[in-house]
């Protein structure tokens, strides 16, 4: 190497302090980092939801299961549960059947402009449910461009909207896997005399099955818990358990029925999550994968998937949104900006208590609070959950913590909102009149997604990086700042975007908690479409456009900050 004599290294004696305890700052910090979010979850999730569930079982202080028999015996309950399962099954089946060709066209082959189409396909997933409901309504309703199909208020309309939402889940989950499948397996099948169709059915499809099963179970979960979109499109005839909880609480004031339905909902969701978890672990120990591989799109060979995907993108995804945007400029007097000008008013015959702009201001303020809460708590959880400690006990504790913070994903937002309503409205904690309740509820809804966005990035850090830093003299805080910090910052952009977008569009919990004088934008939109008058409908359309654009801008900024795609969503 070099011949210059280096000075002899005299080991500078460091100050060596004997510590009274082996419990180092690191472990202590992690404990505190876990306790804060746990306490939050206990007060604002476990307690309200637990109290709600207890209502189904306990009457006058005694265990009473008669409520179950009574509520489940009602024809109305049976119809709602049947509809929930039917809609979710149909929506999932259609999303998978359409999404698999889409995954092929958008991820396995390549063509000019593919990135734009991929981005376009992702938009519906983050759109507020109220916006999607209104967009489909205005497309399918009498007088709409597709009104002649007579689909308004039918099961088909609901299923289409569910597919609109969840198409991208299938395309992204299956496509991500498909792009990384080793093409040589198919080539080997071809050299053994298999036709392309046989090679697909016998080699490719089995390899994709875990990804398809994982996507299908997540889509089923989203469909079975759909709220805003079903509430708007289903009218009196169709509903889900989720909308029924809302109807029972707000219209029939039957809290016991609502509690029983919440438990039924929990069962459905737990089953879907369990299947999703099984499928995910199968996907993780998947087959021979390699770096993403794409071949150019060949129209003759790929005619069928290309055509299917083209129709889905144009008719199912673009048409409702384009129609929404166009019709927001349409008024009884012709084309004009009046719908947007009216956003500064409280609507025809004073449909609202505040102007739409005021509602937007409320939404933004609440979204900032909810985002701060969700991201701070979510990062704390992710930091703890991403550790891999030595002792089996600590490992189990961390796995448990991970599962606990996924629970809000499984418990419907409506249940959370309803739970708040019956617990946080009296001492010891009376927050009903306080404005913090909505951001807290929305933060609970966003928390699992924040954790799932940040945690994989932190888990990808080699633990020996932290060890190397420690042997160089860095204490726990400096290790966290210099090793975890740079990775955390990258994941944070997307987490903030997700939390903000979720909060802006959140309707299930907010519908329960919003006070009449301080509604959010989705609440105002829902109120406007429920009122008669072309003016109110026009305002709802314009407000939907504003909300959709805002959400899309937030998400595209967040996606831009994302450098790698380690996250699961």
């Amino acid at each position: 190497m070099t011949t210059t004599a280096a000075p002899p290294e005299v080991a500078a004696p460091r100050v060596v302090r004997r510590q009274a305890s082996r419990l180092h700052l690191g472990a202590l910090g992690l404990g505190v980092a876990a306790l804060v979010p746990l306490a939050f979850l206990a007060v604002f999730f476990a307690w309200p939801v637990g109290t709600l569930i207890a209502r189904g079982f306990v009457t006058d202080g005694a265990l009473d299961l008669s409520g179950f028999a009574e509520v489940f015996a009602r024809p109305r309950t049976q119809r709602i549960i049947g509809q929930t399962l039917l809609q979710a099954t149909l929506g999932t089946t259609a999303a998978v059947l359409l999404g698999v060709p889409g995954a092929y066209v958008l991820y396995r082959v390549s063509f000019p402009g593919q990135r734009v189409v991929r981005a376009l396909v992702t938009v519906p997933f983050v759109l507020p449910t109220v916006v999607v409901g209104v967009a489909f309504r205005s497309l399918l309703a009498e007088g709409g461009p597709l009104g002649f199909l007579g689909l308004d208020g039918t099961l088909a309309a609901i299923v289409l909207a569910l597919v609109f939402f969840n198409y991208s889940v299938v395309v992204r989950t299956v496509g991500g896997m498909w792009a990384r499948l080793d093409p040589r397996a198919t080539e080997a099948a071809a050299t053994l005399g298999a036709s392309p169709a046989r090679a697909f059915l016998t080699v490719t499809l089995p390899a994709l099955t875990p990804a398809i099963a994982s996507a299908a179970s997540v889509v089923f979960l989203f469909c079975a818990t759909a709220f805003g979109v079903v509430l708007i499109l289903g009218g009196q005839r169709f509903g889900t358990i989720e909308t029924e909880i809302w109807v029972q609480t707000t219209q029939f004031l039957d809290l016991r029925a609502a509690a029983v339905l919440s438990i039924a909902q929990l069962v459905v969701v737990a089953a879907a999550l369990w299947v999703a978890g099984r499928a995910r672990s199968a996907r993780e120990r998947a087959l021979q994968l390699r770096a993403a591989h794409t071949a150019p799109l060949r129209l003759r060979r790929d005619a069928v998937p290309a055509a299917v995907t083209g129709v889905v993108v144009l008719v199912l995804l673009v048409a409702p949104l384009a129609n929404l945007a166009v019709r927001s400029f349409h008024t009884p007097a012709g084309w004009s900006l009046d719908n947007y000008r009216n956003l500064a008013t409280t609507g025809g015959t004073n449909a609202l208590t505040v102007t739409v702009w005021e509602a937007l201001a409320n939404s933004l303020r609440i979204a900032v609070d909810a985002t701060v809460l969700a991201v701070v708590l979510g990062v704390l959880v992710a930091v703890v959950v991403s550790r891999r400690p030595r002792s089996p006990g600590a490992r189990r504790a961390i796995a448990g913590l991970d599962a606990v913070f996924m629970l809000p994903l499984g418990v419907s937002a409506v249940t959370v909102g309803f739970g708040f309503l019956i617990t946080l409205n009296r001492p010891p904690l009376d927050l009903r009149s306080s404005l913090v309740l909505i951001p807290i509820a929305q933060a609970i809804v966003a928390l699992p997604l924040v954790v799932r966005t940040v945690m994989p990035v932190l888990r990808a850090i080699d633990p020996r990086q932290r060890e190397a830093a420690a042997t160089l003299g860095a204490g726990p805080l400096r290790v966290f700042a210099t090793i975890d910090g740079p990775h955390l910052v990258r994941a944070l952009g997307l987490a903030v975007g997700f939390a903000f977008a979720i909060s802006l569009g959140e309707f299930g919990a907010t519908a329960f908690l919003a006070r009449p004088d301080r509604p959010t934008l989705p609440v105002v939109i829902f109120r406007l479409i429920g009122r008669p008058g072309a003016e109110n409908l026009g305002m709802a359309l314009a407000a939907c456009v504003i909300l959709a654009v805002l959400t899309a801008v937030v998400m595209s900024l967040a996606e831009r900050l994302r450098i790698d795609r380690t996250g699961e969503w």
Partner: protein
Amino acid sequence: MSLSVRDVVVTYPAAGGGVVTAVDRVSLEVARGEVVALLGPSGCGKSSLLRAVAGLEPVVAGDVRWDGESVLDVPVHRRGFGLMFQDGQLFVHRDVAGNIAYGLAGMPRAEQRDRVAELLELVGLEGYERRSVATLSGGERQRVALARSLAPRPRLLMLDEPLSALDRNLRERLAGEVAEILRRAHVTSLYVTHDHHEARTVADRVGVMIAGRLAQLGAPNEVWGAPASPAVAEFLGV
């Protein structure tokens, strides 16, 4: 100034409950400025011993002392024991100078710069300060890793298979250079390897570890000349 390891036991939780003993009552001394190599087949516990001395694994029984004083209750970052990893574990979000200066926090900027330049010269990478670590070859990475470990002047430097990831030619050449650097830097070192040639080149004394026990410890000529047991002889191939 010396390291003293006394009857150290390190265990890992086993898959089906219970524990696996990775290091079984090992004792050894490393005198100031001495380089001791720990040689053994993979899985013999030599890396576990290193990690335990560094404070990265808990010591179940026995003691680790520096100048007669136990360091078991001293956290990793205050022990002043450096550890160089097999794959370097460079910090990819920092450049070469940023990596080497990592352990120099608290030192004035100008001094840090001088120290980094001095170490880059020592490992033969003059002028590499602003290079991204992603652009380095395997050999260059390990040189940077060595420079980074030496920078804070650790009282003890441990090297965990520092050259194993390199190809044979480079490994043999670098082994000589590393031996030279360790002598010149006059740093007390514990060097883990499974390569006989590397151990002979680098070390003043060689310890042979087999199945968690230190089977023999002595000067290279003694160890190869008179293996203490049939197992040691078989491992050394003599």
